[in-house]
């Protein structure tokens, strides 16, 4: 969300919630995520004066760095920011510390405890600690165990653990991981991050639905004909081939990001704005969701893989030609599917989800298509009457649009669709925080609203289990259809909707 101008009266007003004195411990501090996302997000919070004076970051990794080396590496990674805000960086950098730690080594964890106590005294952080596991998913369980065994998670009010995605690779591994982390601390201490939930526009789904009286009465099967949820990327697999080959689009995007958008769009209204109330409703609706055809899942899902495309001047490689990708790979880079939700609100309403790499546009949106008017009184200028559509644009051009019919100018009584348009940029101007800024702040505030709870994660994995099993056991039944790079996916995905007399929205 780019802003052309900044409102000078807005400066310094984002202080509604202040983070308590705190030590943020980042495991995997030498990794990519730390200098690309976490430290920039923390520096942004610092510049917004949302971090208390009694604050520190303890970076932990196996590399034998010193505090000074950690600071200078972070400064190097954030060179542009540092140059722009030299003084602020000097103050912020004084909060950065480093301890070489291998969580698999008991003596390292004991030393970590000692260092944290020393930092508590030095920075008066009052024993409040947030442990951020930015490590390989294989170490989530053992990392939590090491922290618990060292007594670092004993105080449920003052310590919490943030775990990056992916949380498990299927239903049973997620269950197992949940059991392990829950044996280390209370559920209230576990913050499973899904950075999509840090997006302003994803959170806006809740506000739009539950702060306005006009939507809720029509937000159900009586008025909504179908819902499409799209997350399209223009980029290919880039540097992530190693990870992507083992996950694919289903695990990488659908199980978490798209499912979270689905849950927020379809959940019941919580009794009050309380983390547990919201997460209860999300879990409930995911538990009621199912593939449109669980017995024959290949009939309600299409997988695809991008092949060569682009123009002669700018050719694009196919997925199998990307560095690090198996030339015979059957990993899907595109997936489309049809779901139902078996509850009173949504019975019979189809939900179509799709996501893919190397599509023509980068965009995420939720489109609710309403039922047509029962009687067609007017001729439509476009030939057929258009159904009303509410489009929630998650990114880019964040906002919402509502498509409805009006009288086309002229002597006749012909209808034509128009678009009522709300744009975050036009209304607010201010750029919204990067997702990690919001989520890191929330984790340190101990607010789990935007983090996924164990039952949500499990319900999400369970929803896709028939597909995952099919891919594992009989992949030929769910083949990977090639699609040309920079097109809207394989033709089979269009057929999925054509069977219902529908088409994907072309944004």
């Amino acid at each position, binding site marked *: 969300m780019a*802003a*052309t*101008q*900044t*409102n*000078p*009266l*807005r*400066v*310094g*007003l984002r*202080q509604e919630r*202040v*983070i*308590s*004195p705190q030590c943020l411990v980042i495991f995997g501090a030498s990794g990519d995520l730390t200098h690309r996302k976490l430290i920039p997000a923390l520096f942004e919070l610092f510049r917004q*004066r*949302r*971090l*208390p*004076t*009694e604050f520190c970051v303890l970076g932990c990794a196996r590399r034998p760095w010193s505090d000074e080396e950690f600071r200078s590496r972070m400064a190097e990674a954030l060179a542009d920011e540092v140059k722009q805000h030299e003084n602020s960086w000097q103050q912020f950098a004084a909060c950065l510390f480093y301890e070489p730690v291998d969580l698999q080594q008991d003596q390292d964890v004991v030393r970590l405890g000692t260092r944290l106590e020393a930092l*508590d*005294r030095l920075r*008066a952080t*009052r*024993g409040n600690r947030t442990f951020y596991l930015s490590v390989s998913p294989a170490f989530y369980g053992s990392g939590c165990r090491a922290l618990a065994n060292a*007594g670092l998670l*004993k*105080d*449920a*009010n*003052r310590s919490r653990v943030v775990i990056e995605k992916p949380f498990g690779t299927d239903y049973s591994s997620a269950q197992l991981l949940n059991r392990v982390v829950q044996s280390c601390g209370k559920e209230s201490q576990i913050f499973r991050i899904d950075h999509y939930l840090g997006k302003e526009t994803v959170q806006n789904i809740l506000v739009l639905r539950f702060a306005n009286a006009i939507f809720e009465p029509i937000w159900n099967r009586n008025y909504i004909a179908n819902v499409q949820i799209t997350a399209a990327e223009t980029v290919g697999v880039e540097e992530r081939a190693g990870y992507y080959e083992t996950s694919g689009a289903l695990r990488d995007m659908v199980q978490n990001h798209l499912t979270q958008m689905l849950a927020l769009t379809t959940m019941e209204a919580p009794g009050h704005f309380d983390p547990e109330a919201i997460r209860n409703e999300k879990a409930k609706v995911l538990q009621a969701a199912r593939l449109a055809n669980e017995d024959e899942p290949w009939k309600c899902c299409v997988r695809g893989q991008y092949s060569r495309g682009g123009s002669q001047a700018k050719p694009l490689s196919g997925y199998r030609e990307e560095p690090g990708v198996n030339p015979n790979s059957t990993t899907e880079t595109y997936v489309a599917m049809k779901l139902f939700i078996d509850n009173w609100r949504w019975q019979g309403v189809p939900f179509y989800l799709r996501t893919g790499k190397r599509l023509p546009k980068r965009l995420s949106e939720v489109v609710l298509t309403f039922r047509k008017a029962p009687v067609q009184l007017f001729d439509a200028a476009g030939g057929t009457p258009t159904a009303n559509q509410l489009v929630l644009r998650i990114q880019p051009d964040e906002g919402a649009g509502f498509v409805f019919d009006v009288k086309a100018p002229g002597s006749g009584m012909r209808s034509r669709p128009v678009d009522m348009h709300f744009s975050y*940029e*036009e*209304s*607010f*101007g*201010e750029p919204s925080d990067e997702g990690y800024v919001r989520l890191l702040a929330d984790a340190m505030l101990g607010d789990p609203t935007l983090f996924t709870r164990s039952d949500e994660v499990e319900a999400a994995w369970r929803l896709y289990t028939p597909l995952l099993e099919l891919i594992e056991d009989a992949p030929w039944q769910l083949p990977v259809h090639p699609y040309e790079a920079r097109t809207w996916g394989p033709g089979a995905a269009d057929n999925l909707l054509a069977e219902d007399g529908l088409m994907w929205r072309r944004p």
Partner: protein
Amino acid sequence: MAPQLTLQAPLELPPSEVPDYLNRLWSESLKDSSGAATFTLVVWEPSWLQQQLIRTGRIDGPISGLLSDQLLDAARQAVGELGLPASTAPTAPELAWTLGQQAGNHSAEDLRGQFVDRAISAHQPRRLITLAPTLDAGKNLESLVAAYCPLPEERAVNADACGDVVVLRGGMGAMQQGLAMLQELIPADLPCWVWWNGSMDESPDLLEALAVSPRRLVVDSSIGEPKRCLDLLVQRIEQGPVNDLNWLRLRTWRESLAMVFDPPQRQSALDQVVQLDIDVEGQHPVKGLLLAAWIADRLGWHLVSSFWIHGQPGEERGIGAEFQRSDGQSVQFRLMPVPVGISKMHPGALVGLRLICSQSDRSPLCVILCSESGGCMRLEAGGVASMELAEEVVPLPNESEEMELARLLGGGHDSTNPLLAAAAALAGKLLPN
């Protein structure tokens, strides 16, 4: 949120024995406790209004130091009965002073320092020291000490951190004596907050002695003589970290005004402001001046002059000023006191704000912000009907002093908010001599 009483009845000790007693307490009775590694909170808690209302029999005791609804009702009733202007806020020092001229000799138990608001106790202060001056100026210094630990159901798994409460009570002379022992009572290795919960301009030497840097001072610039409040605020900010509750209460006004100018197409109007009007309750302009100064500072205006505006005899006087925008154009500012039937809790509450922007290519934009509880007829008059109008209602702040303070304690900074620092300095210049 209900205030909590200390669990243990405080022990009264001779003042000279307090430091030793506390040392013994921590090395013997509480030797297994780590002691909350949090902060010390020193509270100047004169509660003159409550003491005077109790003395004159208008409310019953005990003296708690808290602004209850019953206390505020009694204070508002006293305003009328004592012939003070209806705009006099219940917390205005002149009310307590006028009550002080009335006869009465009722007394009540003094429990100041023993009621701890839950919002504050949730932060587990390591030591809470209350300085509680009494109406009897000659009263000797009394000192009370109590330790507390979280109840089993309130504490976390290994949260055995405890804290203690010290109350120093007596006449103003005795307070000086209490001040002498204060340094010894404040743990050197923890941050220290000083909440000056009284009139800003009373006992300036005491304030000076308490607010030694790097202690973090919390004041309320709505309480006290306006000129002295602003001068002291500026002076304190120069010397160390300061938080002003009066400034924090401006948040809803600042947010509402910023919201009007969030749409980028409106933002250019901020460069073309020609007039700013603010209406306040009664004769305490500090809050209004802080708001005006914040706007001027954010928009880069330069103060040219300020002056008193004298109305008809019997009318209250306002403040006028001229600013110069960065493009050299003039901005006129007027702050006017307006009468109200029932005043808000603090002196000088804002009633309304009007900002007029003369836009070169379209009709002028007039922004009117109006307090939820007030009317803005004065600001809505004067030809604004022909302008592009943006009107908003500003919600009343609904948080207690203790909640505001708890918010500060929870995420404290050891420096003054730069926006407050800039606004206070300019507000000081805006108030004519």
